[in-house]
């Protein structure tokens, strides 16, 4: 049987506010346990919440960037459940009246098509603390530094039909919130976490199947794996004539396994009700216009500009505009390096490969766009060959030297472009290879001749100690060998 895959996402986006959503405690990552958990965050008796203005500003910016309705009046509710990392015994969240209403995000797919994914709504809520699972004499340790960090939970419609689409959406959302500057986007610190709702239905059927929810995936890769895993699991069950149980599942990315956390029957009764410690938040026109004025260039706008301003193709423009920091790095490189296409190739090639290999983000790059730009200039003006340029890049990356020209000098990577010197080398090499010269001159097939030309390049590069300009060598060879 053929199946349609139906995927909806719920994505927790940690907002990059300085303080928590309901208290003036810092949200800085990595502090000593419980040093950023104060009376309100710890739910000490008598403590009351006061909402953070920036959390609302960021949520409104998100609305504007996703063409979403803005909740002019939003209401916090209490979601009641007990967990040691939830100090109040309820999570303050929004349900019936969220800050972000229906909107959409367009995603680009590998086949060049684009697709619109609808956002059902997004709401503001507080993050929980962390249970640390190291063993303290059979006990668990609780760190509440994260408790109260503001989150926007983005809930999509079930508009995605493959892992590829879901990942494309997740990456686009990541690109959007980091470009907006409302989230630091650091997945390793849990700044974005995904819950994936998946169901299958017979191909072409209108009726949705029973769905499962796989919770708390914290990387694009795990999300993709988890979707493949869950689709296969459901397919196996359905093709054996079984039924899918509506349940919440946990996926273990390291083992590519999942297990049931709880079924619908065991589902919590969260007893939502409007939080009586908070009043309705009303967003007025001035607040919205102020947020609109503070919107930076969005990825889609930037992509169009990159194509227009730098003459990049659709693919290059898409990759380089997606992430705000990468886009800024590219523009800095072009500013110093002039040749946009060459800059684009180097950033997507050597630079990205090196970041990936060392699991670094653009922000952690040891070289600046200005340095890479300086290198691009020297590649473009034939000062260095591409092989030489890689050596320069290496020296920049390891911090051996910061100056491109100094590295070229020091390592003797400067290409010889003095025609007289090159001609002498060509004469010498041709004289030492009379048989090959004769073969070449007797060959009529231009393709074969071109190939045979390559046979002279090795000895020429050797004679020039790798510093001869290959392009010039080529020109001289063709001339001397008689066409």
């Amino acid at each position, binding site marked *: 049987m053929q199946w349609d895959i139906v995927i909806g996402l719920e994505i927790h986006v940690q907002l990059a506010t300085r*303080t928590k959503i309901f208290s003036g405690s810092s949200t800085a990552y990595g502090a000593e346990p419980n040093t950023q958990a*104060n*009376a309100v965050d710890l739910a000490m008796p008598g403590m009351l919440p006061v909402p953070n203005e920036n959390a609302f500003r960021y949520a409104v910016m998100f609305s504007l960037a996703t063409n979403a309705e803005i909740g002019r009046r939003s209401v916090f509710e209490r979601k009641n459940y007990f967990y040691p990392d939830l100090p109040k015994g309820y999570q303050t969240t929004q349900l019936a009246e969220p800050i972000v209403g229906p909107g959409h995000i367009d995603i680009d797919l590998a086949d060049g098509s684009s697709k619109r994914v609808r956002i059902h709504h997004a709401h503001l809520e507080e993050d929980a603390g962390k249970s640390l699972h190291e063993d303290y004499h059979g006990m*668990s340790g609780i760190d509440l530094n994260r408790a109260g960090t503001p989150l926007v939970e983005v809930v999509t419609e079930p508009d995605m039909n493959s892992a590829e689409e879901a990942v494309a959406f997740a990456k686009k959302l990541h690109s959007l919130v980091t470009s907006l500057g409302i989230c630091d986007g650091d997945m390793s610190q849990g700044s974005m976490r995904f819950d994936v709702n998946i169901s299958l239905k017979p191909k072409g059927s209108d009726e949705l199947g029973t769905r499962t929810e796989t919770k708390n995936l914290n990387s694009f890769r795990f999300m993709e794996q988890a979707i493949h895993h869950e689709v296969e699991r459901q397919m196996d069950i359905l093709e054996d004539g079984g039924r899918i149980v509506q349940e919440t599942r946990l996926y273990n990315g390291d083992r590519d396994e999942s297990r049931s*956390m709880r079924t619908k029957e065991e589902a919590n009764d969260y007893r939502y009700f409007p939080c009586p410690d908070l009043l*309705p938040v009303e967003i007025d026109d001035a607040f919205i216009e102020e947020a609109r004025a503070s919107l930076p260039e969005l990825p889609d706008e930037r992509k169009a500009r990159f194509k227009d301003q730098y003459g990049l193709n659709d693919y290059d423009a898409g990759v380089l505009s997606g992430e705000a920091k990468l886009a800024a790095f590219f523009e800095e490189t072009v500013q110093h390096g002039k040749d946009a296409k060459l800059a684009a190739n180097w950033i997507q090639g050597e630079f990205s490969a090196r970041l990936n290999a060392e699991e670094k983000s653009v922000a952690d790059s040891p070289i600046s766009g200005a340095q890479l730009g300086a290198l691009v200039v020297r590649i473009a003006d034939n000062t260095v060959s591409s092989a030489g340029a890689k050596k320069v890049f290496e020296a920049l990356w390891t911090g051996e030297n910061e100056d491109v020209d100094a590295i070229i000098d020091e390592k003797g990577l400067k290409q010889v472009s003095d025609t007289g010197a090159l001609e002498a080398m060509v004469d010498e090499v041709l004289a030492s290879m009379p048989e090959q010269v004769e073969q070449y001159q007797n060959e009529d097939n231009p393709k074969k001749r071109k190939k045979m030309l390559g046979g002279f390049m090795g000895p020429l590069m050797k004679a020039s100690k790798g510093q001869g300009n290959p392009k010039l060598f080529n020109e001289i060879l063709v001339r001397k060998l008689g066409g």
Partner: protein
Amino acid sequence: MSISREDIEKVAVLARIKVDDEQVSALEKDLGNILDLVDQLGAADTDSVEPMAHPLDAVQKLRADEVTETNQREAFQAIAPATEDGLYLVPKVIE
């Protein structure tokens, strides 16, 4: 309206309060009486009435995003039942 033993047991689990059989019997009577009192609400005609969550028709004020709190861990953990290495300790948490 009466409330069943099963309901009481279910609600007690939700509220994380241990109740023994004897207490369930007492609660069946007490909660039943309270719910009888509360059931008068059903008689009110509220078709066109907006629910009222707050007695005053006021709007939330928002706080500037500025750090106002400093580390008070020592003071707070001095009154905690069990801590170690700055963490609150609880019986093992299993997801």
